[in-house]
C-alpha cells in the first residue's frame, strides 16, 4: 500500500514554500473559486457535505463546527491551531514547513465559509523555522491580494497574523489557546460558552487544526463527492500519519483513512529496528490509550475503528515501542510530560499528574508498595472527566491503559523495581 498524497502532493518540489512555485503547481485556484464563483453558504455546505473531520484530535466535523458561528456583521475570528506539542505528533510542522501557502489558502477559504475576517495562526514558539516560513508566505499572500482588506477584489476582508507561542503544551487546548492569544497565561476556560459563540476577545471564533485547514482547498477545488472517494464513509479523506519510535523509517506518511495499521508500521515505516516484536503502540499521540501489538496491528486506521478498540485516532501519531521497552518507564515518561505541562488550574489534573509521577518513580526505584499500583490506577480513573480540559485525561488514558494491559510488568516493578532505568 502506497501513500495517497493529497496534502503532500509535490511535497519535495524545490521552493514549494514560495508563492510562485505554489501557484505554478495549481495553488490559489481554490481560493479564486471560493471567493469569485461561490457564495459563503455554498462553501460551507461543501465543507459540511465533504464530511471532513477535524484532524487535531477530537475528530469533530469541520463544516459543522464552522456552521456554529452566528451570522452577522460583527468581527469574527478564525484561529489556526498550530501549537502542535503532543509527543509523537509532527505532521503540522512538515505541512507548514513544506507548503505554507496551502495552509494560508485553506484559512482564507475557511474564513469565507465561516464569515470570519480576522485570522490567526497560533504556532508554537519552538517552531521558529516554520514561523519564519509562514511569516514570509503570509507577506507574499498579502502582496498577491489573497489576504487583506479586499481579497481578490471581492471586497471581503481576511486578515492573517502569525502569532508565536512560547512553549506551553496546554495552549493547544482551544480555550487556552484563546487566552494565550489574548496575551494572558494560557489557562483553559470553562465551557460553555463554546468558542463558536464567545471565543477570542469575546467574539465568535472558529478554531481548526493545521491539517484540517490544509484539506479545505482540495475539498473546494474538487468537490465534496470527490473528497469522499478517499478514506472510509465516516472518516473521509487522507490523514498525515506521523510514525515515530522504534521504527526504521520514522516520518510523516499520508494515507487514506481505513488502511490497516500493520501496513503503516511495517510497510511504510519499514517495521521495527532489527525486526523486533512490537510490544505496543500509541495510535494517536501520547494521549491515546496504548494498544498492544497483537490487538492493534490488524485494525483499520480510522477514527471509528480506533474508538471501538478502546483507544483513539487523536492527532494520528503512531509511536511504536518494541519488546525492549519497559512499560513502567514508558508510563513515567508519559506522566512526566503531562505533569510538566499541567497548568495547575484544576486539582485532579495538578495533583493527579504529580502523584502519578511520584508513584511511578517509586515503582522504578523498587520502593513501592502494592497499594501504590492500586492508587495509581485509581488516580487515573478519578482524573478522567473531572477537569476543565482534557490534559489530565490525556495522561490518565495512556497510563491507565498501560497498567491494565501490562499489569505483569508493573507487578514485577513492585517486587524489584526497574534496575535498568536511567533516571527515576
Amino acid at each position, binding site marked *: 500500500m*502506497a501513500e*495517497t*498524497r*493529497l496534502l*503532500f*502532493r509535490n*511535497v*519535495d518540489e*524545490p521552493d514549494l514554500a514560495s508563492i510562485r512555485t505554489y501557484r*505554478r*503547481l*495549481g495553488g490559489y*485556484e481554490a481560493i479564486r473559486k471560493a471567493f469569485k464563483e461561490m457564495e459563503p453558504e455554498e462553501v460551507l455546505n461543501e465543507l459540511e457535505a465533504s464530511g471532513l473531520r477535524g484532524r487535531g484530535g477530537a475528530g469533530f466535523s469541520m463544516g459543522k463546527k464552522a456552521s456554529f458561528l452566528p451570522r452577522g456583521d460583527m468581527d469574527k475570528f478564525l484561529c489556526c491551531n498550530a501549537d*502542535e*506539542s503532543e509527543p*509523537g505528533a*509532527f505532521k503540522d*510542522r*512538515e505541512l507548514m514547513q513544506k507548503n505554507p501557502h496551502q495552509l494560508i489558502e485553506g484559512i482564507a477559504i475557511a474564513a469565507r465559509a465561516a464569515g470570519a475576517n*480576522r485570522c490567526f495562526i497560533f504556532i508554537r*514558539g*519552538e*517552531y*521558529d*523555522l516554520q514561523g519564519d516560513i509562514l511569516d514570509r508566505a503570509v507577506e507574499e499572500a498579502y502582496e498577491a491580494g489573497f489576504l487583506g482588506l479586499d481579497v481578490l477584489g471581492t471586497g471581503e476582508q481576511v486578515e492573517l*497574523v502569525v*502569532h*508565536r*507561542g*512560547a512553549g*506551553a*503544551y496546554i495552549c493547544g487546548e482551544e480555550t487556552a489557546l484563546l487566552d494565550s492569544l*489574548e*496575551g*494572558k*497565561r*494560557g489557562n483553559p476556560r470553562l465551557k460553555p460558552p463554546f468558542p463558536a459563540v464567545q471565543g477570542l476577545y469575546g467574539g465568535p471564533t472558529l478554531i481548526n487544526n493545521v491539517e484540517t485547514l490544509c484539506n479545505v*482547498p482540495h475539498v473546494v*477545488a*474538487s468537490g465534496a463527492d*470527490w473528497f469522499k*472517494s478517499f478514506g472510509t464513509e465516516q472518516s473521509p479523506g487522507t490523514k498525515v500519519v*506521523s*510514525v*515515530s*519510535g522504534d521504527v*526504521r*523509517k*520514522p*516520518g510523516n506518511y*499520508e494515507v487514506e483513512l481505513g488502511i490497516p495499521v500493520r501496513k503503516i508500521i511495517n510497510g511504510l515505516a519499514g517495521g521495527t529496528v532489527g525486526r523486533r516484536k512490537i510490544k505496543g503502540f*500509541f495510535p494517536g499521540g*501520547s494521549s491515546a490509550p496504548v494498544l498492544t501489538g497483537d490487538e492493534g496491528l490488524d485494525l483499520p486506521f480510522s477514527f471509528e475503528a480506533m474508538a471501538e478498540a478502546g483507544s483513539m485516532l487523536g492527532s494520528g501519531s503512531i*509511536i511504536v515501542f518494541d519488546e525492549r521497552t519497559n512499560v513502567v518507564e*514508558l508510563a513515567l*515518561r508519559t506522566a512526566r*510530560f503531562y505533569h*510538566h505541562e499541567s497548568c495547575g488550574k484544576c486539582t485532579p489534573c495538578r495533583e493527579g499528574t504529580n502523584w502519578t509521577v511520584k508513584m511511578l518513580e517509586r515503582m522504578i526505584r523498587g520502593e513501592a508498595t502494592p497499594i501504590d499500583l492500586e492508587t495509581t490506577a485509581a488516580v487515573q480513573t478519578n482524573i478522567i472527566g473531572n477537569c476543565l480540559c482534557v490534559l489530565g485525561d490525556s495522561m490518565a488514558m495512556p497510563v491507565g491503559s498501560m497498567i491494565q494491559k501490562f499489569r505483569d510488568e508493573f507487578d514485577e516493578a513492585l517486587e524489584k523495581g526497574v534496575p535498568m532505568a*536511567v*533516571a527515576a
Partner: protein
Amino acid sequence: MTPLLPKRERPWQTDPGHIHDVPEPPPMPDEQEKVGTELPAHEVEVLRVAGEARPPHGDPAGVPEPSEVKVPRALAQEIRRAIKRYPQKRSAAIPALWAVQRRYGWCSPEGIVEAAAVMGVTPGYLQSVASYYDLFQLEPQGEHRIHVCTNISCWLRGGDGILDDFVEAAGVEASGHSSADGKLFVRGFECLGACDIAPMASIDERYYGPLEDGDAVAAIEQLRAGTEVLPGKRLEDRGAAGGKRAPADKRLTKHPLNKPKRPRPKRASDGAGRSARTAAAKSKRTSRPKGGR
C-alpha cells in the same frame, strides 16, 4: 446529638438564630499579633527570620510612565508594531517578551519594565505571562541555546544519552544551566515536535537530528568556532519520509489542482508552461539528502 434532618428541614437553613454552640471565630489579624507575643521567645525568633528571607512587600509597581523609562528605539518600535497587529494591545504580551528576550538574551526585569512602558501595562502582568511559558528565561542564560528533547520518541532512541553528551561537551553543571563563559546553555526539553529525527536537539531555534554519538561534541565545537552547526543533520534539508514521489492515484490525477499547465486566460500560458517544465526537469536532477537512514 440530634439526628440529621433532611436538608430543607434543617433549621439553620432558614433561621440562623438557632446556632448557639458555634466555636469562637478565629482571631482577627491584630488579635493574632497579641497571640504571637505570648509564644515562647525562640519560636518568635524563627518566625522573624522566615519573614526576612521573603522579598519586601508593598503595592505592586503600577504602569510605568513612558517619560521615566528609557527604552531602546528598536525595541520600542518592534513592540509597537506587534501591538498594531492585534485588536487588543494585551495580545502583544508574548511578542513583546520575545523582543525583550532577543535583545537582552533573557527576560530581564529592566527589559520587562521597558516593554511594560511601551505597552502601557504593569510589569507584574508581563512577569506573570513570562513565568508561565517555558521558552521565556527569567534568569540570564548562555548565548547559544541547546534544547535536547527527552520525551517518549527521543527517549526510545536514546535522547537521554544525547542530553548527557551535550552537558558534558558544553561543560555545564547539569541540564538547565549555562556554561561558565556564558556561551552555551543546555537544557533537556519536553517534546519539540520532531520525533521523525529522534533523537534530536534544537540549537539556536533550529532542529538537528537524528543525532549520534559524537554529534554533541562536534556541535559544541562548531558553536564555539562560529561555523555552521552539524551541516548534514539539519531538519530543513530532509525530504518527505516516503521518498520523492508516491505512485500516482487515478483520483489524484483528476484533481484540478494537479493539472498545473492549464492555460489561463489572463497569463501568457506558454511562459508559465515553460517555467513549469524547466522546474520539473530541475527537480529530477537535484538530489536531496534523505537524512540519516
